[in-house]
């Protein structure tokens, strides 16, 4: 080995040492930044989910893990009439099962709040004081949902409720009732309330999408001869369509997590004879109200996740 090679060897060694120093320094920095947050996140968010996935295949003695039972919890839960009530579904009678109720929320609430949100965003878009008007619509979204549930109970009360008073004034006495406690209509009454709160959120997203549209596009369309409807159909709608995907998916997530409003109106049972129970309520009752059935609670909560997870990943992929 020549002297030159030797020197080269030394320099290389030294360089590697330097790189290692940088790497060690970076690793320490990474640990300092990441470890505290990720530890708490891991213990209190990731671990319980893993625990639930794992536990859903075991039998439970109240809160204690017992033995592996395979898909037993899954089959038992998914055939439970509290989750899906086939006979009642065929007769269109409530309760139809929590999963069905959740899907009904999705089918009615999500399109309605999306369209209303878009409509209000368009209506307010060029008005003076639009910030204030928007805040009036949105403020309900910042109110605790449990309060929303109680407000709905109050509105639908047969005597003190404004809704029934409106019916009386309109001469529709036969419709006056305690809406949140009438099994066959209560879910629609609650969905209406959900739309009332959630429209503000859709409107907010649409408003920001609308304000991002270059005004000269609309002016150009105006010059080209497009009327208000054409401008909406040809310019505004195509440009806010990506936001619609977000609005719809966020709506579905919100509805699939529905708990507080239903609990406020119907307690842990989800209404008289579970008439408008949702999956969240079933998880809560199975896990924390006797007779405790941890296995079922875990399965139902995982079902909630399975419905929503692909949608959340879709949003993430969009960006």
């Amino acid at each position, binding site marked *: 080995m020549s002297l030159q090679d030797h020197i080269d060897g030394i320099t290389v060694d030294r360089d590697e040492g330097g790189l290692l120093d940088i790497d060690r320094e970076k690793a320490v920095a990474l640990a300092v930044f990441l470890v505290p947050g990720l530890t708490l996140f891991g*213990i209190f968010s990731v671990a319980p989910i893993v625990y639930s996935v794992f536990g859903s295949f075991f039998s439970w003695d109240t809160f204690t893990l017992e033995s592996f039972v395979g898909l037993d919890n899954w089959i038992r839960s998914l055939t439970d009439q509290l989750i899906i009530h086939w006979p009642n579904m065929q007769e269109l009678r409530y309760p139809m099962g929590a999963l069905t109720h959740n899907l009904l929320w999705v089918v009615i609430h999500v399109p309605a709040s999306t369209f209303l949100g878009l409509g209000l965003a368009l209506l307010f878009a060029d008005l003076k004081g639009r910030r204030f008007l928007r805040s009036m619509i949105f403020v309900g979204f910042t109110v605790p949902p449990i309060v929303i549930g109680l407000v709905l109970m*109050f509105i639908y009360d047969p005597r003190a409720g404004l809704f029934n008073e409106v019916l009386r004034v309109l001469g529709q006495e036969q419709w006056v009732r305690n809406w949140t406690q009438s099994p066959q209509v209560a879910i629609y009454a609650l969905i209406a309330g959900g739309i009332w709160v959630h429209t503000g959120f859709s409107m907010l997203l649409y408003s920001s999408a609308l304000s991002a549209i270059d005004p000269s596009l609309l002016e150009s369309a105006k010059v080209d001869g497009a009327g208000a409807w054409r401008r909406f159909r040809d310019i505004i709608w195509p440009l806010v369509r990506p936001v619609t995907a977000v609005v719809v998916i966020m709506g579905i997530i919100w509805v699939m*997590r529905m708990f507080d409003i239903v609990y406020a109106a119907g307690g842990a049972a989800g209404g008289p004879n579970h008439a408008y129970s949702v999956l969240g309520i079933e998880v809560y009752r199975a896990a924390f109200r006797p007779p405790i059935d941890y296995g079922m609670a875990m399965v139902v909560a995982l079902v909630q996740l399975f419905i929503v997870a692909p949608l959340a990943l879709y949003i993430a992929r969009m960006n």
Partner: protein
Amino acid sequence: MAEDDPLEPTGIDAGSGRATDHDQYLSVDDVPDIAPTAELSWRTRIIESIPAKRRALKYVVAITIAVLWIVPFIGLFMASIRPLSEIIGGWWHLEGMTVTFENYYRAWNYSTAPMGQALLNTFIVTIPAVLVVMLLGVMAAYPFARFEFPLKTTLFFLILLVMAAPPELIAMGNFNALREFGLFDTYMGLILIHIGWGLGWVVLFLRNYLLGIPEELEEAARIDGASRYQIFRTIILPLSTPALVSVAVIQFTWVWNAFFFPLVFMRSPELYLAPQVLPLMRGRVQVEWGLIAAGSIMTMAVPVLLFLFLERYYKRGMVAAVAD
């Protein structure tokens, strides 16, 4: 300008013989600094500023909808300041209205769980849960935005998964864990759960924000000799203040409003949080509307006022959180 021939070009032939007419052009000194209408009386200005028919109709519709939208909250407020008999008769009847603070008084001292204590408990849980999430969140978001490290994609995916998960899914595991640690039915237990649950979206939200901060700023600081920690403290933290305010407002609202977690993890009435107390106020025979309304107003006042004061941060954060 000649009235009979407005189309006659002027100025074109000015150079070939006739001089331009000085009266044709205004001197810039003639241009008023403010529009002449500004000098009109207020009365005329108001009349003139009333928009055209279609636009006026639009305003009427918009304002009507917005007012109708908050009618339920007006009803709630009316119920909170009127005796039960008047509420049952209909809060919208204004004749013979009695204003009373009895409901607030009773709610504040509610026997099962006094609202005063419950609101205090809610603050005790919410404030640390917000502050810690902000600090740990921005710390964890920084490497996600700037460094490459192993398992980054996996961690990213886990965060997304947790964000999609319903709160019910983590209740069982945490219930057992808190009892194991001896933190069940304590402030600390609930605070930790809220921190762990909130970190997911906060890290993702702040990462997206940090990606928008030009890297040159950090490179300049590094050339100036700042360490990674100094860069974080002196460049990243100050620059992410607006995003941190958004995080604070939204996380505060979420923790304050949360009902499910306290319901599961707080079992002693003296530890009850405000949202937890409200459904208990319903009473057995006749629903105690006044009590519920007063308790609700007190509970919702905090997040609503926060929203009204920091509306801009709230809305911006909301949009950014879901759009990114």
